[in-house]
């Protein structure tokens, strides 16, 4: 299990009606350095249980005295983003995992195209600091809803000039994916972070235009979607666990004291793969292939059916 660090909230800023920024400093000692694209898990004690949500670090990686994250209040929040928005204030202490990077810059790219949808801007804030420091060639395409999810847009306009392409859906501006991808020179790498339909659209376009998969990188939002309640049974210990609708299987296992290795908590890194022996599974990950799904599942996002208990090889 990843070692946790204790941090103190040293600044809170409301960036838009739904996006709030938090700055952390080490409660003692130093924070570890991080690379652009890294995320941390933030632990949130909600009554009996602890939620862990992953957030991108958006500060300048050259300055590791502070970490910054920005959190969008989710409508269907299971309590994580609501907790951060409503209950966390300057001076509070929180526990964080160490940073880990599942969305790194590619060292061989000659040009970087960054595509952000809404709160998906966060990893790119760190990217931009890094790319500017390196003097690298890049452009940012940022789609948002004005005065709602347009965090950092003024700051970005100032820093990037015409390297920023902003699309405000409230003003009817649309990001044209086909036009964006066409005409990019060979050696360009594309990075996308935002809602699933933006990522799907980009991947589809990139494939249609013959981009190799290795030049398209994406990060999905990591918060697991809620589902229906279901039951699991652990084959080795005989333990039975109820997974409520608003908890992921991984969270329910952790609450019951069962540790499963994990990094992204969003079905992409492959760390939490767990074998199951019986039961129906609703697979929601982006990692396992069809064959692997026959006996494995990713408990950070995937769920059992409500009809019968899921039997896990744990």
């Amino acid at each position, binding site marked *: 299990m*990843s070692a946790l660090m204790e941090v103190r909230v040293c600044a809170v800023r409301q960036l838009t009606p739904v996006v709030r920024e938090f700055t952390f400093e080490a409660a003692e000692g130093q924070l570890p350095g991080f690379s652009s*694209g890294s995320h941390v898990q933030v632990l949130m004690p909600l009554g009996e249980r602890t939620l862990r949500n992953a957030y991108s670090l958006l500060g300048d990686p050259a300055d590791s005295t502070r970490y910054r994250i920005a959190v969008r209040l989710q409508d269907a929040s299971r309590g994580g983003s609501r907790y951060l928005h409503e209950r966390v204030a300057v001076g509070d202490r929180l526990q964080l995992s160490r940073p880990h990077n599942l969305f790194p810059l590619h*060292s061989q790219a000659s040009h970087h195209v960054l595509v952000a949808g809404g709160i998906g801007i966060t990893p790119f804030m760190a990217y931009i600091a890094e790319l500017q420091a390196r003097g690298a060639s890049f452009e940012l395409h940022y789609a948002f809803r004005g005065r709602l999810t347009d965090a950092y847009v003024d700051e970005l306009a100032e820093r990037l000039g015409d390297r920023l392409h902003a699309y405000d859906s409230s003003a009817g501006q649309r990001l044209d994916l086909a036009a964006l991808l066409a005409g990019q020179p060979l050696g360009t790498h594309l990075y996308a972070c935002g809602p699933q339909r933006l990522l799907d659209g980009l991947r589809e376009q990139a494939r249609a235009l013959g981009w190799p998969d290795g030049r398209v990188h994406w990060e999905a939002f990591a918060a697991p979607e809620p589902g229906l309640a279901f039951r699991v049974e652990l084959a080795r210990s005989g333990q039975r666990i109820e997974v409520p609708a608003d908890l992921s299987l991984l969270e329910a296992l952790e609450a019951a004291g069962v540790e499963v290795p994990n990094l992204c908590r969003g079905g992409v890194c492959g760390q939490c793969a767990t074998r199951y022996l019986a039961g129906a599974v609703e697979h929601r990950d982006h990692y396992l292939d069809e064959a692997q799904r026959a006996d494995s599942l990713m408990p950070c996002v995937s769920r059992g059916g409500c009809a019968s208990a899921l039997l896990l090889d744990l």
Partner: protein
Amino acid sequence: MPVVMKPLETYRDDFTFRNSPQAIARFPFPFPEDSYMYSVNLEPANGGASGSVFEHWFDIDEHYVSEMAERARVLERDPGRCLVMPHMAQAAWDSLEMLMEHLAADYPEHFELQRDGDRWTWINRPLGIEQHFTFGDPATLPCEPLEYITRQAQGDFAVLDQRDGDLFMDAGMVTCPADWSIKFDAGMSFKQWHAPVPLAPQMGVFDRALKYLLNIQVGQPVRRLNWTMTINPRLDTSSETFHEWGHERGLVTPENVARLVHLRVELQFMPRLPRSNALLFGIRTYLISLEELATNPAWACRLHRVLRDLPEVIADYKGLTLYRQTVVDWLSQFDPEVRAA
């Protein structure tokens, strides 16, 4: 316990390298059982007993000054043993920071680091160095940062770029390799540079190892031990100098075997470099002659059984074939089963 460094010894020509009883006692004997087969023997590097080679991230021992002199000598003849591709510049600074911080914290009697923003002062007492420099500005160091710091740290270092779900050998300081070469392996992917290893690929060892390495997190390094044998306490058994040492394998006789043949153990240590996301791959080499090793009869007995039963392909790959039997014969005196028979 502070590390006491021995006066200068040599790893070539007259080979004056010897281990003290303390160095023998802390030697990382690599065999947990009486036989050896490849496995994914990676484990979290959570430190180890005080005084052991596992205690600190970067182990410094009594041979420090000699090993650094040997590195300088190799580099003088062949500067190409240190390589940093342009996209690895940040990882080189990352490595420098990690090494300086840990050495200063773990061996305060020998090393000291003062940081004032970007203005750093580095003091290395055993080598008589006091360097003022600006972190991130290569012009303020006497040489490229990876070369600078690894001229002051024992063991080889490869720096691996992580991309495309793989690791690439895009930088390194390699002056004491066990029959490989940073020049030949430069730019290679993880599986490409492991291609010569027999049996292991079929066992899926590298697939699993690679997956594990890709997920190494900041502050949570992993380690493993690897081993081979070397004639004479020669650190630089690089592929490109094979003509200088390869023939020595034919010199082993029952009379000289105990002093000539050395067990060579690599403590491989892999931490994530936080700012560049590259993976540092430290290869810290320990040499021990059979004579020294046999001062611990349990080790001699176990090594006897391991070598006797080692599969032919592995012995071939490790270059032991020519003298294995001579070694096994000599070690058999320490094996109670043989003596009883």
